């Protein structure tokens, strides 16, 4: 197709730009994408933080690959760090030591890489929590939620493979735990372990293999998923909080160009600056403290990076024996005994449940509420007490396991017994999520009631009036329309009792759904209706006389 444009650029720069544009169609893309509207709220920016830290990871990681040698061959360290001089170690460890002490700026880049990795996974997690608690995962965004969940798992995988590369004592201990977990898988575990490590642990292959995964496969998959994720964001448009003029069919905010392009570009450098400042001031993963890996020593305070901590904590919480009951089962087979190491396998169950439930939640919620409409408006967490309760239960379950990974540091720093910390955390492992659900749901319901109260009677003015009769009362001031709108515009699910199918039969799963629906939505606070508002304001006429604007909201 030949260019049919009549436009004739006058300057040479214009001619070059036009030449490129007529061949790649960039102006069309800018026209479309540049007018894309994004709503403005601070909680929408964690995805951006994740993206930027990932870019920082790519940049700093590339620098590190110039100097890192993923070989497990033996060598004698002879670099600048005196307390390890002459110590036998792997080439991988020695090259990481060289990056830290003999490559100009190497230690800083290592720290940038590691700190931004921690911030990356944290930003991904907080972003997912925001999406969950505001209900942004609902139709049509269920698949993007799954893509996001996949990104979280990939981020953990990227982190763990990177953590294992320097071949220091800490990373070797981490790999040993992974090896133990793999070996606990019945029947095939030992074979998988031997395949992965190229023989018996630790072997001489694992660092090279993890390196390939860490610098090629996992980042490539993350990039692919980010591409799909952002594409879907553009297709679905961004969600927005409820507000005057914001509907399910529009997006209120600023266009990408020029406002967001500038803000986002600037924000990248802010994030980079924060990571650089932390990396400059705080040390991370001081491998020179840990020394080279040797299968015999395990240092006190050996923990994985924070995002793997909860799985490590689950292992720490698991008792080896319960009274006389052993969790190691020996199952006789015709070809010999097979071990079932339940005290290593069972702690993996909560991890599977948590991640599985996270992926499945959009469908679970849709099944319970039978709400299959498109949602582009977000819920305030208090306006979905059931979801907030479930989310808090999950977060608490995660945090109990997370705490368990630092049980030894809790014991030393709070001067309590390590055993007691473990006992308490074991109890909280079971009770914490239940209490969390109840308390969070109750708080959400109470906040809704408070909102209702404020809508109907206005906000407390802090002015105490004495009536001629001698009674005291506090003045209430009606809210302005915008604030009022925020408090009244939400949806509240109601109990949906089990329904019969076409032949009049109520299936067992439908009964279960009905029971859950009753459990979740029995207690509910309905949004204030215009009629209620009018009635309330009518009764309290003297209190709200001051503001006459509030009548307009009722229309």
């Amino acid at each position, binding site marked *: 197709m030949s260019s049919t444009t009549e436009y004739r650029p006058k300057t040479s720069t214009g001619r070059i730009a036009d030449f490129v544009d007529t061949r790649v169609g960039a102006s069309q893309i800018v026209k479309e994408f540049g007018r894309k509207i994004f709503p403005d709220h601070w909680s929408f920016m964690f995805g951006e933080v994740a993206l930027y830290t990932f870019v920082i990871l790519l940049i700093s990681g590339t620098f590190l690959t110039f100097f890192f040698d993923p070989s497990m061959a033996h060598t004698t360290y002879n670099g600048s760090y*005196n*307390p390890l001089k002459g110590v036998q170690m792997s080439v991988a460890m020695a090259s990481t030591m060289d990056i830290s002490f003999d490559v100009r700026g190497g230690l800083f880049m290592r720290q940038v890489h590691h700190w931004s990795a921690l911030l990356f996974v944290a930003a991904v997690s907080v972003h997912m929590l925001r999406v969950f608690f505001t209900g942004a995962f609902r139709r049509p965004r269920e698949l993007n939620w799954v893509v996001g969940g996949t990104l979280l798992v990939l981020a953990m995988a990227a982190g763990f493979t990177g953590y294992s590369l320097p071949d220091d004592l800490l990373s070797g201990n981490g790999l040993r735990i992974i090896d133990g977990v793999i070996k606990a898988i019945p029947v095939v575990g030992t074979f998988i372990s031997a395949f992965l490590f190229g023989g018996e642990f630790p072997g001489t292959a694992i660092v090279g293999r993890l390196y390939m995964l860490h610098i090629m496969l996992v980042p490539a998959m993350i990039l692919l998923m980010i591409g799909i994720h952002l594409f879907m964001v553009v297709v679905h448009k961004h969600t927005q909080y409820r507000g005057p003029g914001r509907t399910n069919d529009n997006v209120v905010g600023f266009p990408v160009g020029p406002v967001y392009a500038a803000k986002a570009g600037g924000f990248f450098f*802010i994030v980079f600056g924060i990571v650089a400042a932390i990396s400059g001031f*705080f040390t991370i*993963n*001081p491998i020179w403290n840990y020394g080279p890996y040797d299968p015999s020593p*395990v240092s006190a305070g050996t*923990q994985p990076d924070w995002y793997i901590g909860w799985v490590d904590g689950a292992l720490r919480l698991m008792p080896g024996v319960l009274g006389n009951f052993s969790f190691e089962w020996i199952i006789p087979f015709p070809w010999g005994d097979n071990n079932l190491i339940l005290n290593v396998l069972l702690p993996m169950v909560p991890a599977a449940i948590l991640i599985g439930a996270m992926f499945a939640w959009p469908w679970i919620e849709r099944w319970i509420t039978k709400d299959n409409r498109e949602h582009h408006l977000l819920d305030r967490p208090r306006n979905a007490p059931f979801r907030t309760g479930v989310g808090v239960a999950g977060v608490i379950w995660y945090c109990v396991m997370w705490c368990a990974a630092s049980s030894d540091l809790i014991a030393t720093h709070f001067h309590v017994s*390590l055993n007691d910390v473990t006992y308490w955390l074991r109890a909280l492992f079971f009770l914490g999520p239940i209490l969390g659900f109840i308390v969070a749901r109750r708080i959400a319901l109470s906040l809704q009631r408070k909102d209702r109260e404020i809508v109907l009677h206005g906000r407390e003015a802090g002015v105490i009036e004495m009536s001629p009769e001698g009674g005291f009362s506090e003045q209430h001031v009606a809210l302005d329309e915008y604030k009022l709108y925020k408090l009244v515009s939400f949806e509240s699910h109601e109990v949906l009792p089990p329904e019969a199918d076409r032949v009049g039969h109520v299936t067992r799963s439908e009964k279960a759904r009905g029971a859950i629906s009753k459990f979740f939505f029995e207690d509910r606070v309905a949004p204030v209706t215009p009629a209620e508002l009018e009635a309330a304001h009518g009764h309290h006429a003297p209190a709200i006389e001051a503001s006459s604007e509030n009548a307009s909201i009722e229309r």
Partner: protein
Amino acid sequence: MKALSQRRRHPLAAVALLLMGLLITGGLYAAASSVNEAQAATTYSASDVNEGNKLFVANCATCHGMNAEGSPSGPSLVGVGAAAVDFQVGTGRMPMQMNGPQAQEKPKQFTDEETKQLAAYVASLGAGPAVPDEELLDTSKGNSAAGGEIFRVNCAMCHNAAAAGGALTRGKFAPSLAGVSEKHIYEAMATGPQNMPVFNDSNITPDEKRDVITFLKEIEAQGSPGGAQLGSLGPVSEGLLIWTAGLGIVIAFTIWLTSRPS
């Protein structure tokens, strides 16, 4: 020789052989362990011992017994050596302030002279590890890299790879080694205070102990090459920093970026 070969199938031959083996092993062990303790230098004067005895009866005998023979509240001190006294009293752990999972370090209760007299008394009760010579504490003669390897294999599982301390069971703990004097580190290794195992001279030789001390003093003096070390506690404090300060600063900026003058 012929008599021996005739009796080798005697019913008691196995018993005799076992007895012989045990005697030789035991004898050799006794010889070896007395070599270890032979360094107990007896440079204490009789008056030191006397004064020490008085101090002991006044301050320690309640738990350890009038003749340091031990009681249900405290172990016997016969044979623990001067090093044990110098460590426990010199770091303030003894006399113990209160019962607990383990004796805590606190400001020391006795002067150096009194500590020496107590040590002299306890050393006079039976041979044990002596207070180390200056020679064994001279870090300029030690090898920090070798010491680091010994530390990681023997000490780091409780004291942490950077000697920042760690938790043990039921409220017991391995303390941080920052600021502990060379002499006290040596004595701790030689005597195994509280829950620490004894690393005697055949386990870790005096020269190796000096290497360990050299390593500890070197990592303490060099500071942290990468910036603030967050207590050298590993990934937990790192994760805590990124979730509090790191995310906190990020959130502050997101709020600033999305705020509008309205």
